[in-house]
Every structure is written in structure tokens, then in C-alpha cells.
């Protein structure tokens, strides 16, 4: 049986396809059912119920595309390392495979995850909680590639471009990563995701993995890394993905010079199960979810089952890495029937604690308010 909500979702999924004369339902390569924000280019959100495993399966992993997915000929593909380097490189996929390969478990989160919660609203994908996932990425270290290229001491940024190109006059998607972050031992060029070749929709053949940083830094389909004293001056680095240097009141737009690059992500936890608005019996339940802290480890998750009056420690999963989320769980037996507001808050190794309310900012980045769901316990 479908619920009314599911019926509406199915109808809304089917209608536009039917209107367009399409015979097949909306589906995306290599993906099981996801929430569709946009179909071209693809912007797909993972429903929170799939955050019950430490590694998010590739076929449930969220997708954020700024520009249409490029077609890549793996044999012809090359990575150009140019700029402030004594030995510019042109590397093939085979060249990259021959380098030492490193496994890095890391959580990838879109900077705008949770944007739909901000008021006043702002343009951008209206993500709920699911523009995030955790995967094991595998590939060569950027540090090794930069050393082979003979990176100059003057190089401050790697300006990274992918094979995707803008439609019309849409700017190219280029991101500037500080060389000190590129040289970090966990920064790799991923050729694999969760033990499989990197799926095309996630950046085949090579994707930059910038652990702890916003998803925009994790450039897909990487074709060029230009070492420079200056960051890129294009829209996607100089204007987009910027956050106020100092807090601003909701609705206030700071001047460009009052904005800064996002870089490391916030500390945050969310519920995976039970579902928001679930109906539960008066029996023991396991509340569960995930927690992460950008470049820091998660050291604590607390849960409140009484709307934030009292907090108790949740259990954390044994995986304890920087850059990768941890699963948390909490046993709860409702003491009484009725409506219950459940909350979770994380603390990371830098001492950052998930706030009651995330700071409003013009583009709606870094939503990390204490997570909350409501459940109704039936007698």
C-alpha cells in the first residue's frame, strides 16, 4: 500500500514525463531511487533512510552537477599539470593507475545541504538533509603528482578544471585549492569510489577528493591543474561558495570583500531512523543517524527525547577517522504515548558543537542546526 505522500510523489514523478511524451519513468545512470531536484543537469538527493550504513552505496549517493555531464573518452583523456612547475605533466589514466594508490574514507557534503531550512529563502537547490554521503575513495595523492611536476615554492593555488563546460555564456566550473591542502596526505585524485571505478556521474575518470571541504572543491572529470600565485577569478571561485566573514542578520547581503571561501565544513549530526513523523509503538526503539565534523573527528553525539530539555550520549560507531562521518545510535523506550520531539547534536575534536540555529547567510550554506524529528507514539 502507498501512503498519500508516496502517491503524490509517484504522481508528480510520472506527470512531467508523461507530458513530455516520455514512456520511461525518470531514472539516472547507475542510480536507484533518489529525490529529484533537477534532471538536466542531474541534482539528486539521498533520502535519509539510506544513511544507515557507514559507506553510502554508489547507487544511493547524492549528485550535484553545475553543468551538463561531459562525455569522456578514457583512452584520450589526459590530466594537464601546468603553471608554476619545473616539469609540466600530461598524465593518462594509465599513468595515474601506476602511481601509488591510497584509500581515503571521506564524507562529501554539498555546501548548500539544508538550504531549504533558511528563512528568508534564497535561490539555489532546496536541499533537505540528503546532499551528503560517505565513501571510500582510492587514487594517487596530489602531493606525489605535484612533486613529480616540480611545484614551485611560489605556487599558492592549484586552479582545477574539469571536462564539463558551460552552456552559452555560463561560466566554466573552476575551483582554486590552496597548495597546502593539495599537499595534504589525504588529498587524492580518486579513480575509484567504494571499490568500483569512479562512476561517470561522479566524475569518471578522476575526481579531486578534498577531505573535510565543501563538495564544490571536489572537482569532477578533472582535466587541468594549473599552479598559480593567484586563485581563479571566475564566478565559481571568486563569487560562488562564499560565506560571510562575520555573522549577518537574516536578509542582509554583505559586500563581496566581506565574504570568504568556505573550505572546511561544519559540525553536524542528523537522524536517519526513525523517519520524521513516524508512528511508533510503546516498545524499545533504536534511534540512529550519522555525524561529521568537516576536517575534524566527531567525538560526541548527544540525543534529546524531550525537545532539548535533557541530553544523553549516543553510542558512536568504531570507525573513527578525520574527514569521515560516524554512525550513532541511541536506545529509547518511550515513557508515554503521544507526540515526541527528538533531537541530536554533535561535537567535534576541535570543540565545535552543533548550534541551536545555523547562521543565515546569503547563499544558504552550512546549515547545521541541531537536527530534530517528530514521532507519534501510539499507546
Amino acid at each position, binding site marked *: 500500500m502507498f501512503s498519500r505522500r508516496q502517491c503524490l510523489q509517484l504522481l508528480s514523478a510520472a506527470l512531467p514525463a508523461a507530458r513530455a511524451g516520455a514512456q520511461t519513468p525518470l531514472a539516472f545512470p547507475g542510480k536507484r531511487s533518489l*529525490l*529529484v*531536484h533537477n534532471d538536466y543537469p542531474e541534482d539528486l538527493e539521498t533520502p535519509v533512510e539510506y544513511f544507515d550504513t557507514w559507506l553510502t552505496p554508489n547507487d544511493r549517493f547524492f549528485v550535484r552537477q553545475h553543468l551538463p555531464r561531459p562525455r569522456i573518452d578514457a583512452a584520450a583523456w589526459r590530466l594537464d599539470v601546468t603553471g608554476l612547475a619545473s616539469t609540466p605533466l600530461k598524465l593518462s589514466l594509465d599513468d595515474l593507475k601506476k602511481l601509488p594508490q591510497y584509500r581515503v574514507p571521506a564524507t562529501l557534503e554539498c555546501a548548500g545541504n539544508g538550504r531549504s531550512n533558511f528563512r528568508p529563502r534564497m*535561490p539555489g*537547490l*532546496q536541499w533537505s538533509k540528503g546532499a551528503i554521503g560517505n565513501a571510500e575513495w582510492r587514487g594517487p595523492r596530489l602531493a606525489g603528482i605535484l612533486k613529480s611536476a616540480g611545484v614551485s615554492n611560489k605556487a599558492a593555488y592549484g586552479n582545477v578544471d574539469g571536462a564539463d563546460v558551460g552552456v552559452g555564456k*555560463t561560466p566554466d566550473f573552476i575551483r582554486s585549492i590552496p597548495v597546502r591542502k593539495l599537499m595534504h596526505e589525504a588529498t587524492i585524485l580518486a579513480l575509484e569510489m567504494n571499490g568500483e571505478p569512479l562512476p561517470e556521474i561522479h566524475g569518471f575518470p578522476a575526481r579531486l577528493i578534498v577531505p573535510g571541504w565543501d563538495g564544490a572543491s571536489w572537482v569532477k572529470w578533472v582535466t587541468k591543474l594549473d599552479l598559480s600565485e593567484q586563485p581563479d577569478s571566475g564566478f565559481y571561485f571568486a563569487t560562488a561558495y562564499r560565506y560571510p566573514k562575520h555573522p549577518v542578520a537574516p536578509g542582509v547581503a554583505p559586500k563581496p570583500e566581506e565574504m570568504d571561501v568556505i573550505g572546511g565544513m561544519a559540525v553536524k549530526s542528523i537522524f536517519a531512523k526513525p523517519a520524521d513523523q513516524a508512528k511508533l509503538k510503546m516498545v524499545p526503539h533504536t534511534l540512529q543517524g550519522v555525524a561529521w565534523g568537516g576536517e575534524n573527528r566527531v567525538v560526541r553525539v548527544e540525543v534529546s527525547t524531550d525537545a532539548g530539555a535533557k541530553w544523553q550520549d549516543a553510542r558512536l560507531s568504531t570507525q573513527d577517522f578525520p574527514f569521515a562521518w560516524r554512525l550513532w545510535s541511541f536506545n529509547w523506550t518511550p515513557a508515554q504515548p503521544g507526540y515526541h520531539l527528538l533531537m541530536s547534536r554533535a561535537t567535534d575534536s576541535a570543540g565545535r558543537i552543533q548550534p541551536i540555529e545555523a547562521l543565515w547567510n546569503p547563499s544558504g550554506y552550512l546549515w547545521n542546526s541541531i537536527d530534530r524529528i517528530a514521532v507519534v507514539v501510539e499507546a
Partner: protein
Amino acid sequence: MKRLACFLFLAAPMLAADAATIEKGRAQEKRQCIQCHGLRIIHVQRLPRGAWERELDKMVRWGAVITEREALLEYLAANYGDDKPLPVLPRSADAPSAGK
């Protein structure tokens, strides 16, 4: 009462664009916006009119050809204003190759 009726008569055009204008805006969206991206990314937004204006400015800078700007704006404000709740998102189907 008479004054109220008079006010409503005068205010009506300001409160809501006429259906023909909105339809003209819808046609413009279907013809122009879709050349670069799917329409869903528009339809999932809920924005005040000023924000829609800035979005149109950005799209024109990025190469969109908008010949019916006012109609498009009326259509967006009437259907996707910030006074409306967010839509329930559709779920995609499993791709044939996924999860196998």
C-alpha cells in the same frame, strides 16, 4: 464600502497578473530556459519577486535570451513565490543497471 470596492478595483491589477500574461511567461520559460537546463530547478524554488528578478539578470548575463521578461517574471512570481510551500520532490525510478 464603496471606497473599499473602488480600492479593490484599482488594486486588482497590481495584486495579480492576468492569466494571459502568466501563460505568456510560461511559454517563454518553456521556449528559452529549457535550452540550457531542465525546468525542475526553477520549479523547486520559492522566491520573492526581487530574487526572481536577480535570477533573470544572472541568466541573461549567462546567455539566456528573454524576450518577454515582464511576463516571465509574473509567471514565476505567481507560481513559485516565497508565499508557497516547497513542493514534494518526485522519486526517480531505479535505473536498470543500479543495485545489481
